């Protein structure tokens, strides 16, 4: 192999190592024996070292990759063993205090919150720290995140035997041990410590981001700025999903970038040095991520943003694939079960689509469309194609109007995020100003809501998909980059417009 080719190969070796680690971590939850995997990792690392000493570089790289894979498997399996919760199987009565860990959701049937047992006692009472579902009667005022509340009610399995598989999978992923049904709740206080500080930040952000707004408009503004569908009606939630617009309610890299750039601009105006600006950006981005809903999407965006800033700080180049794989490795190392999380799958699939599918589609479209429009269509197409297999396998349906709806909604969503975040800060400084800014954001949210309602009303907006459709959809998603690669390699063949 020519030296240049080998150097190019060497550039990809770290990616292969990270990919092997990620695959290993993803295999962890499938019951791999920890001791065997760990022994394999150590053995292969030793083999790799010996091969490298004898100048067998390729074999050494393979051995190291296998060592990473085995190490990831061992770690993933050990982590699952240590954190997995055995669900409660009997019924009983409990009373005492719990901590509300996530913003509750309200449906027609119940107000539901994920809580952590604080001081529960009674038959079948779990120990402090156990994660539970708390169901309150419909119409009950939902408690706020971080509140310590007193409840009294029945405790039992969170899933009946006849519950669907996805519900069991969700409970396992969320480490939920049981469900408590209570008739009401009484506030006792708020959580303390670092988690309490984060709760206070979340409550502050949620209160200020949509100040003066209510209903679905407030929920959309809040969701676009902080993630999640808190406070959104079931009908609107379904319409957002059917229109392929639900992703607008997940915190993306764009949100994190807006916060970082905003802070950099402020510090730049104040005459701060480059390093001070980077530190300020990092702090602002970190605080923003902590204030958000805590889903896989914001974790990915925050980690990738942090890695990019670290690269800038150290004067190293930004390597987007490295950042993506490293972020995935960190998330899976923390919770290997999250590999089964559709939110995580959609988030990473969308980014892959933006990296791989959007560029060739964009180049091709630029022959026909103005640059910004071509880029917008390309990004929507890339993310849409890449997430289609996940939607088919995880949710059993696909939105056929998603591309069109996104073409209208995405250009609106960007400004809404910026305005809503500015409004959050403005409300903290002077409440009437915050309300005024939130009203401007509401105009954008109203447009998004209108698009969702119109698009989801079109006949055939959602097509049911069997799980096996994920395979052909993956092949379709791989078509644009493959074609582009082929057009570049075959002499004399160019794209339709010669781009």
């Amino acid at each position, binding site marked *: 192999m020519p030296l240049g080719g080998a150097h190019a190969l060497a550039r990809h070796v770290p990616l292969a190592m990270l990919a092997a680690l990620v695959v290993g971590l993803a295999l962890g939850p499938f019951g791999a024996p920890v001791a065997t995997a760990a022994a394999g990792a150590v053995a*292969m690392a030793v083999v*790799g*070292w010996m091969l490298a000493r004898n100048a067998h570089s390729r074999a*050494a790289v393979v051995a190291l990759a296998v060592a990473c894979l085995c190490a990831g498997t061992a770690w993933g399996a050990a982590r699952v063993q*240590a954190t997995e919760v055995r669900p409660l199987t009997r019924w*009983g009565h409990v009373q005492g205090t719990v901590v509300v860990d996530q913003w509750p959701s309200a449906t027609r049937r119940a107000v539901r919150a994920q809580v952590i047992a604080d001081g529960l006692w009674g038959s079948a*009472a779990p120990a402090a720290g156990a994660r539970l579902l708390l169901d309150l009667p419909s119409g009950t005022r939902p408690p706020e995140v971080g509140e310590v509340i007193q409840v009294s009610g029945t405790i039992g399995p969170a899933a009946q035997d006849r519950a669907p598989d996805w519900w069991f999978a969700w409970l396992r992923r969320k480490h939920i041990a049981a469900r408590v049904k209570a008739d009401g709740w009484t506030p006792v206080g708020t959580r303390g410590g670092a988690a309490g500080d984060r709760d206070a930040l979340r409550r502050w952000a949620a209160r200020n981001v949509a100040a003066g707004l209510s209903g679905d408009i407030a929920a959309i503004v809040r969701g676009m700025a902080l993630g999640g569908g808190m406070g959104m009606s079931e009908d609107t939630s379904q319409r957002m999903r059917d229109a392929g617009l639900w992703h607008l309610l997940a915190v993306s890299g764009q949100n994190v970038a807006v916060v970082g750039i905003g802070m950099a601009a402020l510090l730049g105006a104040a005459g701060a040095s480059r390093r001070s600006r980077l530190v300020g950006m990092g702090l602002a981005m970190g605080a923003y991520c902590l204030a958000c809903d805590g889903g896989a999407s914001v974790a990915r965006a925050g980690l990738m943003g942090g890695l990019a800033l670290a690269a800038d700080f150290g004067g190293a180049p930004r390597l987007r694939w490295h950042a993506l794989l490293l972020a995935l490795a960190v998330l899976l190392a923390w919770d290997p079960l999250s590999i089964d999380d559709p939110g995580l799958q959609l988030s990473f699939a969308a980014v892959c689509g933006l990296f791989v599918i959007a560029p060739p589609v964009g180049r091709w479209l630029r022959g026909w469309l103005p640059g910004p429009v071509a880029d917008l269509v390309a990004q929507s197409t890339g993310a849409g194609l890449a997430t289609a297999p996940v939607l088919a396998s995880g949710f059993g349906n696909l939105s056929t109007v998603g591309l069109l709806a996104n073409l209208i909604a995405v250009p609106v969503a960007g400004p809404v995020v910026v305005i809503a975040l500015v409004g959050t800060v403005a409300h903290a400084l002077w409440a009437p100003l915050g309300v005024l800014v939130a009203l401007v954001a509401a105009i954008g949210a109203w447009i998004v809501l209108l698009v969702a309602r119109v698009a989801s009303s079109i006949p055939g907006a959602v097509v049911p998909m069997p799980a096996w459709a994920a395979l052909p959809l993956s092949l379709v998603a791989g078509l644009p980059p493959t074609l582009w690669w082929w057009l570049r390699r075959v002499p004399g063949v160019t794209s339709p417009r010669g781009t």
Partner: protein
Amino acid sequence: MDGLLPWIRRSGWVYGLVAVVLALVAWRWAGESGSGSGASAATGSVTSQARRPMTEAAPIVHVIGEVRHPGVYRIGGDARVLQAIRLAGGPTRKANLQGLNMAAVIGDGQQIIVPPKVATRATAAGGGAGGNSAAGTSGQVSLSSATAADLEALDGVGPALAQRIIDWRTAHGGFSSVDQLDEVSGIGPTRLDALRPHLTP
């Protein structure tokens, strides 16, 4: 020598080292959780009890209320509430032991509350032996021992429904909670709510 060798010598050892460290930490971690000392806070007692039979380690209980020496005690496996109360110095004169099931088996991490005599019925029912026993308050029908006639005496329960309740009890080995009535055919949430005040497990 090819182009990969410089990379291996410059950076490859880092990946090897990371793999070895990860593997060894995971190995040690799994060993600890396997021996029962590595349960994380998030798993709670539900998990730790499921993984560790009570006989493996002596359960720790918290005895409070009307006992001479309230506190946290380590107690032998398969111990009963009676033994826990004895460990805590025995009940005081004010203790109301009628609401306690002294024969109930103790689980690890359980709190046993010995209520005072002046306690209301509701307090005694909630606090008894960490909830291991129902209070057995008068006027309530015990699902575990009621006859068909006892059940028929309840409003809204006819002979057929009473028989279905007894059939369910026979098939499932008894009721551990009144809420399990929800699983008996013919009993919906409304009827369950109406019956609940008159029943104990």
